[in-house]
């Protein structure tokens, strides 16, 4: 088992004539929670698709290790399958009926949806649906969770709740996580490292590390500081009183 899950070496990607990603060099070690934030259309999702292997880079090199699962923005669940049937997609490798049964039970408990096993996605709220998606992605022995704006379709309070839920689930089933989001608070509340992208073609503007263990309160000083610093860097908040020494060169 290598300790680096993703290694990107001067990776670029363009679609037709449009360059989406400037040469990007990035290491993501096992177990890290990385959040990528940036203006919409800046190439965040392209990065995720490169990491998952859905697309290949135009130049440069990516090494990937570990088994990956992606959680989509919304409607990633199959509407014709129940909660249990959707989650079992993540357990297709299990042949033993008893093992499958106990895993399903454990995962349903993890997302606190006991009693909803036989419900269909359209009978659930948006937050419940995303919880099922996360359970499906956490099922089995996977190493990496790729999250593509998983909570962006939810209302504000549900979003706050889902962040706590995700932190709790990851404590029980640790994974390397890459979260793509435009929600800077979300990134600061969840990630060990926040990478800020510039406008297209995307370039790493800066990185910010957080050390407070999860779940972090939205108003925790470290979170507030990170949010302020990121917003400042994006030109959305006034001058920073914080020393720039904490910044890692981007």
């Amino acid at each position: 088992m290598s300790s680096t899950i993703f290694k990107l070496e001067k990776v670029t990607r363009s679609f037709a004539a449009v360059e989406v990603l400037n040469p990007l060099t990035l290491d993501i070690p096992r177990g890290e929670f990385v959040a990528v934030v940036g203006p919409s259309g800046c190439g965040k999702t392209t990065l995720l698709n490169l990491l998952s292997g859905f697309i290949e880079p135009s130049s440069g090199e990516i090494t990937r290790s570990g088994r990956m699962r992606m959680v989509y923005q919304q409607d990633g669940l199959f509407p014709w399958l129940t909660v249990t049937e959707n989650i079992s997609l993540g357990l297709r490798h299990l042949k033993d009926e008893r093992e499958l049964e106990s895993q399903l039970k454990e995962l349903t408990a993890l997302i606190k949806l006991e009693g909803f096993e036989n419900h269909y996605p359209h009978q659930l709220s948006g937050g419940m649906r995303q919880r099922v998606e996360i359970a499906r992605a956490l099922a089995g022995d996977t190493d990496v969770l790729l999250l593509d704006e998983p909570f962006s379709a939810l209302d504000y309070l549900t979003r706050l709740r889902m962040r706590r839920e995700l932190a709790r689930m990851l404590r029980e089933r640790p994974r390397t996580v890459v979260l793509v989001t435009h929600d800077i608070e979300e990134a600061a509340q969840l990630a060990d490292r926040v990478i800020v992208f510039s406008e297209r073609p995307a370039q790493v503007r800066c990185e910010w590390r957080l050390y407070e263990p999860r779940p972090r309160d939205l108003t925790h000083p470290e979170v507030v500081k990170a949010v302020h610093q990121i917003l400042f860097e994006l030109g959305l908040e006034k001058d920073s009183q914080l020393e720039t020494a904490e910044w890692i060169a981007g």
Partner: protein
Amino acid sequence: MTPDHVSTKARLLPLLVLLTALAIWSLLTWLRVFPESVFPSPIAVAKGFGEEISSGRMYNDLVASLFRVTAGFALATVLGIPLGLWLGQGARARIALLPAINFFRSLSPLAWIPFAILWFGIGDKPAIFLIFMASFFPIVLATISAVASIPNVYFRVARDYGIKGFDMLTQVTLPAIAPQVITTLRVTAGLSWLVVVAAEMIAGRDGLGFAIWDARNGLRMDLLVVGMIVIGIIGVVIDRLLVQLMKIESIRWGYDR
């Protein structure tokens, strides 16, 4: 939204409409607004019903018509859905064939009646052919559009979880298009039921359509009305049966949201 919320009283309303219609009908015949020869009375029709049932003719006609509709409709479904799946996924084939399919869809199946008789004679075959021509093209078109509108994310999720090949068809494509296809089947089944009557009037020696034609030739307006009532009721029954498909749990998502 669902009929469950309608009160028992409101459910009796259709019955009230029926009774009112019967009353008006009776009144019109009793007042002799129209001559009996072109406007049969409810009692004459009820007697006609008894006659048709006891002679066994109604049963024969019903079986004949239902057999033709079932055969033509089943054939159109079994051939139309695979063709639609194929065209929905293959852009080149779709570009090549779509204009032709649209042409035949717009062509009234009744226009085929002369050829149907020339090619297949009289009886089951021409009727089955006409029903097939009526329902095959709409089914193909609906399947194409259903396949084209499957959200891409389903295929990505399927690939993420290792679903491929034939499983992709049975576990993703088919369940994803089922609600839309079933809606079309319901419409085309209704269409088939319309077509079988016309087909039997011209190219049949039995069946409900022929019964109508035969009653007209024999100037038996009471039997003509009997035929009309049976055709209408069976049409409603067929539709109700297909509505049951829409209530299947794994299909309902397509209508509830």
